[in-house]
C-alpha cells in the first residue's frame, strides 16, 4: 500500500499530511499517557508495534503473480484504537521510507492515512460492533481483515483522486477501479492470513493480564 516517493502531486501530499498529522500527534500523546499511567504494561504497546514490524516486512506472493504485504495493524487496533495505531504505523513507515526506499517522505502523509488511520478506524469499528456477539479471536480476525482490506481501498482512492482518468467524479471512480485492480485480488488472501495471525496472537496476549482482558472487553 505504499505510494512510492514522489508519486503524489505536491498539493495532495500536503493535504494528506494535514489529515494525518493531528491524528498521529494525538496518538503519540495517548501512547505517552498510556505508558505514564501504567494503565497497560509497556510490553503491550511494544508487542502491538512489533506485530506491525513483522507483518509489514513480509512481502507475500499472492494468487495474482505479484507480491504485497500485510499491514499488521490488527493487534494495535483492538488493544488501543486507531490513534495509537496511527502513531505506531508512522514509526514503521518512516523506517521503510528512510532505509528501504519503500514508500516515501512526500507520500508519508497519505500512507499513514491509509495504513495507520482509515484502515484501523474501520477495523476498530468492526471490532466494537462484533465483539459483543462473538469471541475475542473471531472479533480480532474480523478487525485485522477489515483494517487490511480497507487500507488498500484507501490507497487506491488516494491514487485515483490524484490521477483521475478524466476530470470529474466519474474519472476518479474509473481510476479507483484501475488501481483497485492492482491491489484487490492480491490483497484478498493476504488479508485473511493477517487476520488469522492477529487472532492467534491476541489469544496469547489476552492470557497475560487482567488489565488487557478488561481493555479487550473480555469477561471471564
Amino acid at each position, binding site marked *: 500500500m505504499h505510494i512510492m516517493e514522489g508519486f503524489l502531486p505536491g498539493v495532495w501530499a500536503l493535504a494528506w499530511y494535514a489529515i494525518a498529522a493531528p491524528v498521529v500527534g494525538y496518538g503519540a500523546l495517548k501512547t505517552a499517557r498510556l505508558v505514564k499511567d501504567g494503565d497497560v504494561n509497556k510490553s503491550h504497546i511494544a508487542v502491538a508495534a512489533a506485530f506491525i514490524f513483522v507483518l509489514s*516486512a513480509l512481502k507475500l506472493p499472492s494468487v495474482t503473480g505479484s*507480491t504485497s504485504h500485510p499491514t499488521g495493524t490488527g493487534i494495535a487496533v483492538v488493544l488501543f484504537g486507531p490513534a495509537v495505531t496511527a502513531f505506531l504505523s508512522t514509526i514503521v513507515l518512516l523506517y521503510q521510507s528512510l532505509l528501504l526506499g519503500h514508500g516515501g517522505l512526500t507520500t508519508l502523509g497519505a500512507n499513514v492515512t491509509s495504513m495507520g488511520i482509515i484502515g484501523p478506524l474501520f477495523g476498530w469499528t468492526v471490532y466494537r460492533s462484533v465483539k459483543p456477539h462473538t469471541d475475542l479471536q473471531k472479533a480480532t480476525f474480523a478487525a485485522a481483515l477489515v483494517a487490511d482490506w480497507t487500507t488498500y481501498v484507501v490507497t487506491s482512492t488516494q491514487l485515483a483522486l490524484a490521477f483521475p482518468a478524466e476530470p470529474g467524479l466519474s474519472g476518479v471512480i474509473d481510476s479507483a477501479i484501475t488501481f483497485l485492480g*492492482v491491489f484487490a485480488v492480491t490483497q484478498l488472501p493476504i488479508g*485473511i*492470513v493477517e487476520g488469522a495471525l492477529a487472532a*492467534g496472537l491476541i*489469544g496469547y496476549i489476552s492470557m497475560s493480564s487482567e488489565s488487557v482482558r478488561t481493555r479487550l472487553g473480555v469477561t471471564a
Partner: protein
Amino acid sequence: MNRWLAAGGLLMVGLILFSFTTAGAWGGADGAAGEKVDSVAPDYDPWFESLWTPPSGEIESLLFSLQAAIGGLIIGYYLGRGSPLQSASETP
C-alpha cells in the same frame, strides 16, 4: 496449539507454494501501482526521489529481514517471559 496461528501459517505456506507452481513476475504491487500511474497520467513526473535507497536487492532484503527480526524478537520475548519460566523457577 493455537488453531488460528496454525491456519494463518498454513495459508501463508500455501501461498508461497502456489507461487512455485505458477508463472508470474512476482513483483511488488506497490511498484505495479506506480506503473499504472504512468499509464493513467503519462505526463506526470515523480517530483521527489528517495533520499537513500539500498544499493542492491540483497541489501534491501537484509534491511527487510532486520525489520522482521526486530519485531519477531519483541513478540518472542513477550510470549516467552510469561508463565513457563515462572513455573520452572518454582520447581527447584
